[in-house]
């Protein structure tokens, strides 16, 4: 995906948020005099139960709108989403934008020319109209996802190199390396764990548990080691020694070193299963791709994968 396409797609995601923020800001600038001094900003059920000054309503609303837009835009720009991922993210993003736009602008209009915002309520008809707007917007997002240039078809088996490692008869060889990860990955895992600790410290144990789990599972991957030897390929060590995965040499047809993009090739990070291939992907960059007997592939992101592939091919040649 070229740079212009990524930029254009990111703009498509930012657009609804920017447009709603613009409309909302303009309405506020024009008609803030017609609002009660104290405005309703929180509703329970359909009735207002939280109030704030006008500034306390408009700035957070604009912040949320622009923040969400930036988030979705950045996810598209940096994540290089393939069509399957865009079909999911675009409707969610457009639906979210419509929901927020409807609520922000709707509650604004509802309070125009009121003496006091106390007890102001939305009606069932408002909610119905809102649902229709959200669904329509989500559908527009779904249609937009497929626009633009087609994703290049993945090159089956073409990318990558399959070298050999010279070995004399009688020699034993073993290649081993820890699975690579990026500073960004560590940062994300660290923040999730920090969130869990903070939530626990504040007494929200139930909220802390999922965060703890989401933080600890990737942490376990950090100690994973890939080993290639006469027995085949082994993934796992340390904490995960018991849950390790071994692909015996008899089941291996060959190997190659390949460049992998988690989002593009696997639609995400971690242990992934896709049609025809599965893998442990922790970062963008080089990976060892093991070609299994029967055509399936197993991919693991690891540095120095050329040496690993070369050794594996040599071992397969000699079996």
């Amino acid at each position, binding site marked *: 995906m070229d740079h212009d396409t990524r930029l254009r797609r990111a703009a498509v995601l930012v657009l609804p948020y920017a447009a709603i923020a613009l409309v909302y800001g303009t309405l506020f600038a024009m008609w803030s005099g017609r609002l009660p001094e104290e405005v309703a900003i929180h509703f329970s059920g359909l009735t207002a139960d939280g109030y704030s000054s006008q500034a306390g309503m408009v700035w957070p609303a604009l912040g949320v709108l622009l923040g969400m837009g930036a988030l979705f835009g950045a996810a598209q720009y940096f994540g290089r989403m393939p069509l399957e991922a865009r079909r999911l993210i675009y409707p969610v993003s457009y639906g979210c934008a419509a929901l927020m736009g409807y609520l922000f602008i709707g509650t604004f209009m509802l309070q125009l020319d009121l003496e006091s915002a106390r007890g102001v309520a939305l009606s069932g008809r408002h909610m119905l109209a809102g649902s229709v707007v959200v669904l329509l917007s989500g559908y527009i997002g779904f249609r937009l996802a497929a626009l633009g240039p087609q994703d290049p078809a993945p090159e089956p088996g073409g990318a990558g190199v399959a070298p050999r490692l010279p070995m004399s008869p009688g020699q034993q060889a073993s290649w081993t390396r820890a699975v690579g990860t990026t500073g960004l990955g560590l940062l994300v895992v660290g923040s999730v764990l920090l969130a869990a600790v903070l939530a626990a410290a504040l007494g929200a144990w139930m909220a802390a548990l999922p965060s703890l789990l989401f933080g600890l599972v990737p942490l376990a991957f950090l100690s994973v080691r890939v080993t290639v030897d006469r027995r085949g390929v*082994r993934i796992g060590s340390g904490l995960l020694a018991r849950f390790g995965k071994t692909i015996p040499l008899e089941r291996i047809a060959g190997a190659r070193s390949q460049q992998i993009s988690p989002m593009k090739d696997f639609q995400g990070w971690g242990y992934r299963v896709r049609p025809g291939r599965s893998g442990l992907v922790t970062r963008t960059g080089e990976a060892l791709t093991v070609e299994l007997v029967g055509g399936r592939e197993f991919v693991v992101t690891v540095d120095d994968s050329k040496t690993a592939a070369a050794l594996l091919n040599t071992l397969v040649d000699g079996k």
Partner: protein
Amino acid sequence: MLFRIDPSATQPLSDQIASCVRGAIADGGVARGERLPAARELAESLGVNMHTVLRGYQRLREEGLIELRRGRGAVVSGGTDPAAQAHLVRTVQQLVEEARVLGLSDQQVLDLVRTGLAH
């Protein structure tokens, strides 16, 4: 890191294992702070006795290239520049080999090094 050993070679297997690690450190393939595979795992992988691997690791520790810590295993240390340290150890090995070929005694080699250090 690639380990390649030849059981039919004259060099002891533990020394072959040590020299694989040393080579990897010298090439920059293994950086400071990186962990070596656990002795048991590497032994199983290469089909050798675990004590052979431990002997190799022990030698690397004596050369100042790795640290052995209980529970943490073997970690590459080698001062501020592990690659340079690994190079130095290789040079010392070369010195010893050449001295053996010449038939020098250990004392003669030590005297030679001492003379070198004195100037």
